[in-house]
């Protein structure tokens, strides 16, 4: 529902959009064909680029995987609708890097020594348990599906803003992603990742400089923004009772962020542990503030997801809008492909008996995308960000096995598995009982505090994991 006077991108905008979006799909889809057929489609070299990536390439890959429709569509939408509350994404993308610095170099080292490609491999080697490996693998798979769904929402949003009617944007978003990954494999995102980053940087830099100038500076922008918010509390920027969700959502998102198959892949592909440490120094540079600008432009919509596209339509001429929309769509397409392929190789490596072939991986990647489509159609969440937070609820349950497993504690595979099962069951039950809300109201001595469901369920995991392994020393942590 856009206002009737809403400007459109015009034919110039649509043409520019098509040129960049279609060119990216063609470039990606034809990537493996251009490189020659019959190449080895399995193994370390293919999926991690031979672990040869230095600081700069790792910066692009890790940061680029992180910079998706989540940043450009989902976060601005929730900031637009709820104000400062949606801003938890900022502390989240800051505290994630001290965490990465402290934890990921060790994981990278272990993975390199053992020749592991993903989290489930590491866990199997460390705890010698095929069941725990499968559990971690399944969790990665189910968690990444709603995250891919978020990317599809991102592509659908810009196609809608270009004026495509009804269900066509979602169908087009799905088909373009399917073609891009089906024909290109991992070569598709590898070939187009730099193009994607370049386009996104141009658009973000243009947005954070031009839009505030257009609106008369950041001061005017904030003043204008507060008018649009339903309840801007006096003196406080967060509403009553929002402090704890703000902090804990940031924490839970940060803890889950680098457990996902697609982000962990970027970390494991680094040349050595010190590359990751140096990266953690530079990565906060990615953190930006697109969401706030959305308030300022005076756009009124009942569809928060479309705030950023509408903002661009209101301010920029058609051809820039076309370029920006293409950047947003490509910025969703490339990570979605990495996620789908990551999920597929997880299935063929860790879940299916024996090592799978390229055909199985390709079919699985398609099924994962169909599942993501199903997520959008069946769950119909209020905000796209809820899809990512839903994935985090599950993803967090792998933290004990992967990260607490690094500490010299005597955790056992049985204990971790039981904790994982309890956390998954508790987390899923709470989140679906609450109607897909990312936070659960916890009633303590009369007053309710809201805690993210994933963290709540994780408590169960930790307590069980530590208490269960009582005196079964024989299956303790193995040296890797």
């Amino acid at each position, binding site marked *: 529902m856009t206002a009737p006077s809403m400007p459109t991108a015009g034919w110039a905008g649509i043409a520019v959009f098509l040129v960049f979006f279609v060119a990216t799909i063609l470039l990606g889809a034809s990537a493996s064909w251009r490189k020659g057929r019959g190449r080895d489609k399995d193994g370390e070299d293919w999926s991690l680029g031979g672990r040869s990536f230095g600081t700069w390439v790792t910066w692009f890959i890790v940061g680029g995987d992180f910079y998706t429709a989540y940043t450009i569509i989902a976060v601005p939408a929730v900031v637009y609708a709820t104000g*400062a509350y949606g*801003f938890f994404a*900022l*502390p989240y993308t*800051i*505290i994630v*890097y*001290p965490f990465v*610095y*402290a934890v990921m170099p060790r994981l990278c080292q272990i993975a390199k020594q053992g020749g592991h490609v993903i989290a489930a491999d590491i866990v199997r080697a460390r705890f010698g348990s095929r069941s725990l490996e499968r559990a971690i693998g399944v969790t990665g798979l189910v968690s990444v599906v709603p995250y891919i769904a978020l990317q599809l929402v991102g592509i659908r949003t810009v196609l809608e803003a270009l004026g495509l009617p009804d269900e066509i944007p979602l169908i087009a978003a799905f088909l373009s992603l399917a073609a891009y990954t089906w024909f290109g494999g991992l070569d598709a995102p590898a070939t187009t990742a730099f193009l994607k980053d370049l386009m996104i940087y141009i658009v973000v830099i243009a947005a954070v400089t031009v839009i505030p100038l257009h609106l008369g*500076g*950041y*001061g*005017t*922008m*904030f*003043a204008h923004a507060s008018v649009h918010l339903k309840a801007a509390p006096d*003196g*406080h*920027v*967060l509403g009553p009772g929002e*402090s*704890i969700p*703000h*902090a804990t959502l*940031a*924490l839970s998102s940060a803890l889950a962020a680098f457990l996902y198959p697609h982000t962990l892949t970027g970390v494991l592909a680094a040349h050595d542990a010190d590359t990751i*440490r*140096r990266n*953690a*120094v*530079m990565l*906060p*540079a990615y*953190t930006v*503030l697109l969401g*706030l600008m959305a308030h300022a432009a005076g756009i009124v919509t009942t569809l928060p997801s479309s705030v950023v596209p509408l903002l661009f339509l209101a301010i920029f001429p058609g051809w820039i809008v076309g370029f920006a929309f293409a950047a947003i769509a490509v910025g969703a397409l490339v990570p979605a492909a990495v996620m789908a392929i990551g999920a597929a190789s997880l299935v063929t490596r860790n879940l299916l008996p024996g090592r799978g072939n390229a055909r199985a991986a390709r079919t699985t990647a398609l099924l994962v995308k169909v599942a993501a489509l199903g997520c959008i159609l069946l769950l119909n969440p209020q905000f796209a960000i809820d899809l990512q937070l839903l994935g985090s609820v599950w993803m967090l349950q792998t933290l004990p096995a992967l990260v607490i497993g690094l500490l010299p504690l005597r955790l056992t595979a049985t204990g971790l598995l039981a904790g994982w099962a309890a956390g998954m069951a508790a987390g899923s039950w709470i989140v679906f009982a609450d109607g897909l809300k990312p936070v659960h109201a916890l009633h303590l001595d009369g007053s309710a505090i809201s805690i993210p469901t994933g963290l709540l369920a994780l408590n169960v995991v930790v307590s069980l994991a530590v208490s269960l392994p009582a005196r079964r020393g024989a299956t303790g942590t193995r040296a890797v």
Partner: protein
Amino acid sequence: MIQAGGSRYLRPILVHMLLLLPFVGLLWVPFYDRATPALFGFPFFYWYQLAWVPLTAMLIWIVWKFGRA
């Protein structure tokens, strides 16, 4: 830098404690949940959190530079 106790392991541990500061600074929400003092038109709530972006980068750099045994 910190030269406590003379132990060659104590210093890296102390330096690594700097990594906890962003967590404290950003997760203690009541401390910054207010609009003033504003800076360049940014309410305190926003500029305080944004200020942690370069600050965190700097802290991680210090840990990387001085935190190794």
